[in-house]
Each structure stands twice: as structure tokens, then as C-alpha cells.
């Protein structure tokens, strides 16, 4: 998958918690403006991977590096801020990820002040531009998070992540707490942002139908390991691993057979010894 325009290279990431290997040998390249999906069930290691990418979790071994820069793993304030300008994350639950006492406008201005040395007027302008970009009106911009809906909060989280103009945005199930129609709005917003800014996405999800909407490439994880990887459409059309097939069969549709899915899941779990 290596390309000359890669913005991020992930090499042999591994993380264990006690005897449990959460992520084992995760490698991929992410090209500028591309979007890669990581799918799997609870405990597959997809969220641990996301946390290692943004530096919330330190890998036992392996590296996450950004082209044009050294493989720094610094923990100081300066290193952390530099990392923040390369990669940002949008969390799953919009009800937990915002400070309840800070309005969206204030939140954005704070992030901008922390990272850029700008006069107040320009700071305000920049915050307004971000609010416009995610379609938040004046009322929402100056309301406290409790006065906002789930979809509006997720827009705030996206604007806040974009405030430092990162090269990579990690989205950890950004729509799984939202209604279908709101999910569609957020997906459309993300599509537009990617087209306008050439930003790269790492999109974590358990929902293949959503991943199909927003990614070019796909990594399927099962029990900490990559079991399948390739162009999203290829993987969905011709899955090669049993687990990918199980995920595809699990999506409800008229005439599906949920009982055979249960049998297939148990057969797969029995055949796969965890951590082996």
C-alpha cells in the first residue's frame, strides 16, 4: 500500500494490557487526502489502534510516523502540541467529549490561541470560519453543550479537531450514537471537508455500510490482528476472510438469516485461539 505521498506510516504496532494482546502487528500507510477504515467488533483492537495513532496510548513496540518528520515519541508539551497539529481525533460520544461549561465558539478560540500566535480579531475570524464550515449557526455557536443536539455536538467536535489544520483526522465511531438522518448529515459534512481540504481520515467503525460511504481502503481487525486489508469496495464485494464474511452477513436486510450468523460466529471463535 506504500505510496510516495504517504502522510502517515504505521509500522508493526503492538500493544498489550497484561496478558491480553489488544493490537498485534498493525501496519499501514495513509496517503494525503485518502480515507482508510478500520472495522471490527468490541475488543478487536480498533479503538486501541486509534488511541495509539493520536498518542493517547503508548505502543509496546512499533511506530507511528509522519512524513517529513522524525519518529519522535516525545512526551513534553512541545512534542504533544506538534503531534496535535498533525493528527486530531473525534470521539464516539458527543455527550462526553465537550466541556459542559464552554460554548463551541469559546472552545474553538481556545484551541486556536493554544496553537497559533494570532491577534484576537483573526482568532475570532478563524473560529467563525470553522463554525461556518460545519454549518453551526450563531445560536448554536454561543450555546452551552447541554443546549445542543447530538449531531450539533459532533459538529463542534469536528470543528475543534479541524481548528489546528491537522493532516490526519481519526474518527472513532463518530456517528454510532446518532440517528440515521443525523448520521447522513455528518457523513456528508465529512465528505465535503475531505474534498475541500485534502485531509486524510482514519475512520473506526463496526458498521460496514457506513464505512463503505466514507473510506477508500479498509482494514478488518479480529482479536487484535489484521485479518484482511484492501480497497474498500474490493473487500466488501469479495471478502476473503471468514470474519469479514460474517460481518457482511450480520447486516440486517430483508430475508437475512440471523440464526446461521450465530453459528458462524461461534465456529469462528472456536477456531481462533485468542492471542495465538
Amino acid at each position, binding site marked *: 500500500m506504500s505510496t510516495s505521498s504517504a502522510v502517515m506510516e504505521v509500522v508493526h504496532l503492538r500493544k498489550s494490557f497484561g496478558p491480553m494482546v489488544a493490537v498485534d502487528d498493525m501496519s499501514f500507510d495513509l496517503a494525503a487526502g485518502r480515507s482508510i477504515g478500520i472495522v471490527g467488533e468490541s475488543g478487536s483492537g480498533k479503538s486501541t489502534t486509534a488511541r495509539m495513532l493520536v498518542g493517547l496510548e503508548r505502543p509496546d513496540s512499533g511506530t507511528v510516523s509522519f512524513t517529513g518528520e522524525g519518529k519522535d515519541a516525545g512526551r513534553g508539551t512541545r512534542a504533544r502540541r506538534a503531534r496535535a497539529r498533525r493528527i486530531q481525533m473525534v470521539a464516539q460520544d458527543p455527550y462526553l467529549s465537550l466541556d459542559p461549561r464552554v460554548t463551541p465558539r469559546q472552545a474553538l478560540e481556545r484551541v486556536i490561541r493554544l496553537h497559533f500566535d494570532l491577534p484576537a480579531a483573526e482568532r475570532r475570524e478563524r473560529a467563525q470560519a470553522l463554525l461556518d464550515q460545519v454549518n453551526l449557526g450563531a445560536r448554536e455557536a454561543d450555546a452551552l453543550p447541554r443546549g445542543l443536539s447530538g449531531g450539533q455536538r459532533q459538529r463542534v467536535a469536528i470543528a475543534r479537531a479541524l481548528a489546528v489544520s491537522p493532516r490526519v483526522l481519526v474518527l472513532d465511531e463518530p456517528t454510532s450514537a446518532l440517528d*440515521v438522518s443525523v448520521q*447522513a448529515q455528518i457523513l456528508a459534512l465529512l465528505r465535503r471537508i475531505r474534498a475541500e481540504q485534502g485531509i486524510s481520515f482514519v475512520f473506526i467503525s463496526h458498521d460496514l455500510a457506513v464505512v463503505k460511504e466514507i473510506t477508500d481502503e479498509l482494514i478488518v481487525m479480529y482479536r487484535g490482528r489484521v485479518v484482511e486489508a484492501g480497497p474498500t469496495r474490493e473487500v466488501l464485494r469479495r471478502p476473503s476472510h471468514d470474519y469479514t464474511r460474517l460481518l457482511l452477513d450480520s447486516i*440486517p436486510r430483508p430475508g437475512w438469516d440471523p440464526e446461521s450468523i*450465530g453459528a458462524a460466529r461461534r465456529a469462528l471463535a472456536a477456531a481462533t485461539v485468542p492471542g495465538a
Partner: protein
Amino acid sequence: MRVRDRFRSDAASAIPGGDVADALRIEGLSVRLTRGDAQRPILDGVDLVVHAGETVGLVGESGSGKSVTSRAALGMFPAGAEVRGRVIVGGVDVVGARRSALARVRGGEAAMIFQDPRAGINPVRRVGDFLGERMRRRGIGRAERRTRCRALLDSVGISDPDTTLRLYPHQMSGGMLQRVMIAAALSAEPGLLLADEPTTALDVTIQAEIIGLLMERRAHSGAAMLFVTHDLELAAAVCDRIYVMYAGRIVECRPSGSLFADPRHPYSVALLRATPRLESEVPVVPVPGRPLSLAEAPVGCAFAPRCPHAVDECLEAPPALVGVGDGAAACIRCNDEDPRR
């Protein structure tokens, strides 16, 4: 009252064959919060029927009133709400029913499976105590309770019932616990099963397994089911008929197949277009605008501000359900040549 009566008679003629042996019959149900800044009722003249043995879906987004509707079947209404209409379960109108009649409905006629199994079980009691509670109150002895509980767990595919009976809820996965809740709900052999987003909190593969179990057990017991979800695909896979709700009203009621093949209400059309589907090559299309808050009380159709087909007449009065093909839709234009254009 006059408006509601007219609405009811329209709807009754629009919903086919709704008088024989119904597991649940809701007629003209309106629920209004008397406190806060609510300007419109959370339910507004809801008519809904679940025939005996039938599986019916109730689909809508957060705030559409779908959960309030399903809870109404157990006589559970928001505190201090003003309730009008009838909710008949097993021959009992639970609106304004006496405590003893309500207890009979909740303890036998109808049972509910909630979204979060952990919210419906006492975390400091063992699974065995939870499952055997009703039996103990009926005076069934300890040994007999144990046998019955074991059989219940066995029926929902729990392979080691003896160990499971001794577990506390926190020692179980969400999927396992939901199996226990299904076993508990079916233990009283209810005529009506209410399932409120029973798999939303679970992984997709586990969801499939739990739905499979629920469908199999329901068919085995012959109970009717009202299946509440925001997931149209899931509803279509599980249900015979689907009601679509928007802003406290039923906007469409159709057999699952025809709702998908030929939705007639613009909101149903928009919802289907916003749902990501593996088979589809077309990207999802967001529904423009935002859902109606309780503080907004439009005179006309609640969906009109977001509707691409709205005309002046839509703003005059809320549209009544009218018959369309094999169901009903609440849109004055639902019988136009092509409402999607």
C-alpha cells in the same frame, strides 16, 4: 375532540382488518407534558394495532415518540403527563386503569425488553434471583424455581445454566445479559412482547444472534411483538408491518416489503435515502433541516419545513392518515403520481 374523532375514523378505515384478536390496540393516543416549555403533545392522535402473533415495527428518530408509544402499552406514561385516548392490552384499557389491572398487564399480558439490559436488572442480585423472582412471589418452591430457571436459560441458548444462575450482571457480557432479559420477558408467556431497540448497544454479529433468538423464541411462543427501532433495515428484516413516526404522529403504516419498495410519505423516502446500504452505489442523502423540537407547534404538517414536495396546503392543517395501496400515509400528496419526483 372533534379533530381527533375525525382523525380516528379516517385512520380506522385506512388500517385494514383491525378488529379481531388484537394483542395491542392504541386508539387516538395523545400525551402532553404539562410542565416545561412543550408547545405540542409528545404523542398526537396515535393509532396503532398489533394483531395476535404479528410482528410490527415502530420506526422513528430520537424524540419521534416511538418509545413513549411502546411504554404506553404497559401503562407507563411520563410523570405528570396529560393522556387521552385508549391503549388496550389483553382486553384492558391501561389508560386510567386500576393498579391491580395494571399489575396484571405488566405481570402477564405484556413484557418489555429494553435497549440496555443493565438498566433493567438489579446489579446486586444474582441472575437466578432475578429470573426466579416472579415464581417466588407465586409461591413456587426453591427446587422447582431452579429447574424452571435452568430451562429458561437453556431456551435462550445459554450453554451452562447452573453457572450463569449464580452470576451477577456485571460478570456477563451485554449479549449474554440480553439473552437473560429475553428469557425473563418470555417466562410469563405474554401475549405481547415489547422490544425497545433491544440490540442497539450490541456488536453487529451479536445483534444478529440476539435478533435470531428473539425471532425464534417469539415464533415458538406465538406472542405478538412491537419492535421499536431507529434502524429501518433492521425493522424490515424482522417485522411484517412497519409504522413510521415523526414528531409524535404516525406518518406511514405499510407491510415491510412495500414500505421499502414504494414508500409514500416523503419522510419515509428521506429516511430510506439517509440509510447507508451495502448494496447501494449511491451515497447517502441527508434529510435537510432538523427534527421538530417540543417547543415548536406547527399548524400544518410537521415535516413540511423539510419536505421537498411541500405546497401551501401542507401548512394549513396536519394531514390525516389516508389509505395508500396496502397501508396508510399521512400526506396530502401521497397518492400523487410520484411523490419522489
